[in-house]
């Protein structure tokens, strides 16, 4: 597991705001958190440390502004904090290796990659995002190609 339980909580809370549920499932119900953990274990193992650091900094920012971890904040406060971090507006020191904006933007990309990619990648359960936007690969059930 590339993340601690606390970091994992922060990740899930962040994903829940990056692609929230509405009348369609959001990132969490689609398994996007598991998609990201899988990437951090395999294709993106080299990024695991910086993303873990970023999640710890996210909680530190939340603590600094609101006295609570990110996951415990109300949605409006979470969104305001994300907006600030995207613009690199921080109230606590971030390490030189990971800027707040780079961290959040990377999570924004990863969330969308999981949520909108093919279900076999693990972050688009039951192709929910595809049904939401009107995409179906329309592949033949029995491919005739050799």
């Amino acid at each position, binding site marked *: 597991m590339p993340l601690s339980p606390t970091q994992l909580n922060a990740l899930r809370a962040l994903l829940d705001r990056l692609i929230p549920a509405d009348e369609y499932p959001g990132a969490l119900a689609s398994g996007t958190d598991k998609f990201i953990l899988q990437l951090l274990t395999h294709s993106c193992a080299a990024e695991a440390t910086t993303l873990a650091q970023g999640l710890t900094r996210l909680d530190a920012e939340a603590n600094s502004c609101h006295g609570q971890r990110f996951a415990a904040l109300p949605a409006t406060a979470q969104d305001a904090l994300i907006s600030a971090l995207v613009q690199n507006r921080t109230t606590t020191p971030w390490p030189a290796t990971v800027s707040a904006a780079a961290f959040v933007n990377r999570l924004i990309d990863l969330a969308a990659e999981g949520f909108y990619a*093919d279900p076999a990648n693990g972050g688009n359960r039951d192709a929910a995002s595809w049904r939401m936007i009107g995409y179906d*690969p329309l592949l033949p059930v029995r*491919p005739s190609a050799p």
Partner: protein
Amino acid sequence: MNASHSIYDVIIVGAGLGGGIAAGVLAEAGQRVLVLERGRDLRYRDIPGDHLRHHRLSLYGDNTTHDPAGHPRVFVDPQGGSRTVFPHEAEYHNNALTVGGGSRVWGMQAWRFHPDDFRMVTRYGRPAGSSLADWPITYADLAPYYERAEHEVGVAGDHTTTHYAPRERAFPLPPVPSTPTGAWLARGAAKLGWNAFTPPLAVNTAPYQGRAPCVQCRQCIGFACPTDARNGSHNTLLPRALATGRCTLITRAHVARVLTDTSGRAIGVEYFAPTAPDSAQTERRTAFATTIILAGGAIETARLLLLSNSPQHPHGLGNHSDHVGRHLQGHYYPVVSGLLPAGFENPNLGPGVSIATTQFNHGNPGVIGGAMLANDFVKLPIIFWRSHLPPDIPRWGLANKKAMRELYLRGIDLRGPVQEIPSPDSRVTLDPHVRDRFDLPVARLSGTTHPETVRTAEFIRARAEDWLRAAGAERVWSSAMDLRLSASQHQAGTARLAADPRDGVTDSFGRVHGHNNLWITDGSLHVTNGGFNPALTIMALAFRAAAKIAAAH
């Protein structure tokens, strides 16, 4: 037969379009052919439908490369910084690594070049600092071989509307079906007074050569075709070669050097191959032939010529006048996005490319050359999210999610392959430090295209915006182009044709100057790369070279 010392009539390095076509023509002409291919002979099920790892979006890998860590390249940025890059990264300038090469996963646009694409200097002059040159052949020299490629590989198109290049025969397959977006764009073109027609695609629109037609799925470019309707070398000329019984195909075979004798004659190749078909163990082998053909793509063919140096040829084969590896080019692609009007019924079917204009390939005021413009392939959701949402849509949150569901089916984009003005400094050399799995120096890519390319690309970008606006797009947006190295799947120019050995690497048929029996049949030969997708020109040159080789035997 002793596999480590085999003798053939012809050895072909690379089983992509150029190599596969040469194999088919020469094996059917009675030659004993050995084809050495770095990739594997992948079946449909072996090429994953992974939306994050394929040949149009390779975020973490692709769906053909089997040993990405073993074959890096080095990329030098315009500021001079260099770094090691791997196949899934843009700076690697990758192409599919499999039998069939790029034709296994390509978008299938099968254009003839415009007659003026062969005489750019005559038409425009040579800009200072560029290596723009006329081809040593004309459109008329290539026309019969374009026709052969269209019929033997299989191209769908409408000869009654494709007027920019003279032709004698109709296409063998009817054009891809018209689409509502195509009809909408046609009305826009009519308002502007531009030509617009269904582009030629190498896809079975009807049963052809024993294979099924396209079923218009939405997982097209970058993936394997589920009905084998996408035409390439892997399902046409290469199977024909194998059917003769005179062609041997060895996959996972990495050619290390072309062997030459003291007179400069190519006598064979040294290569690494698995000790058994599925083995991870490799062994060094040598094969000999009377004719050697290189078709590894413009980057690897140049690398192989450079790797094949000898006391007689210290700078590599064919490199007597320092052209090998230079003039590396691909296509600049301005991309203009827009939104179809609200309520537009878009069935969003593949392949998706259904209309094109050649209005701006030549004769554009103040710029050199131009490009064909066409609508794009059916788009994956993640590609739409990454690159085609309007720029003012928030990148996250409910607003982004709502935009995805409201705009995905309304997205439309136009793009066109801008003919590059080549630079001698855009080049492939051997990296002095980084080596591949077999301890051979890897390709080092450096330089940029000529600034004139960017000016033409900006002109074309503005015309694409005009087209979307005239058609009635609700919004239109695009990004400015910058100066950079361009190669990628359309890589070309690194061993260019030239009648005079001082001006290029091969003669007008693709035979390497100074090496009478060493030939090239890939995009390396292209003096310029046309304002069109280059695959049909690669095919035509391969048919023409192979016919010449066959006739000499």
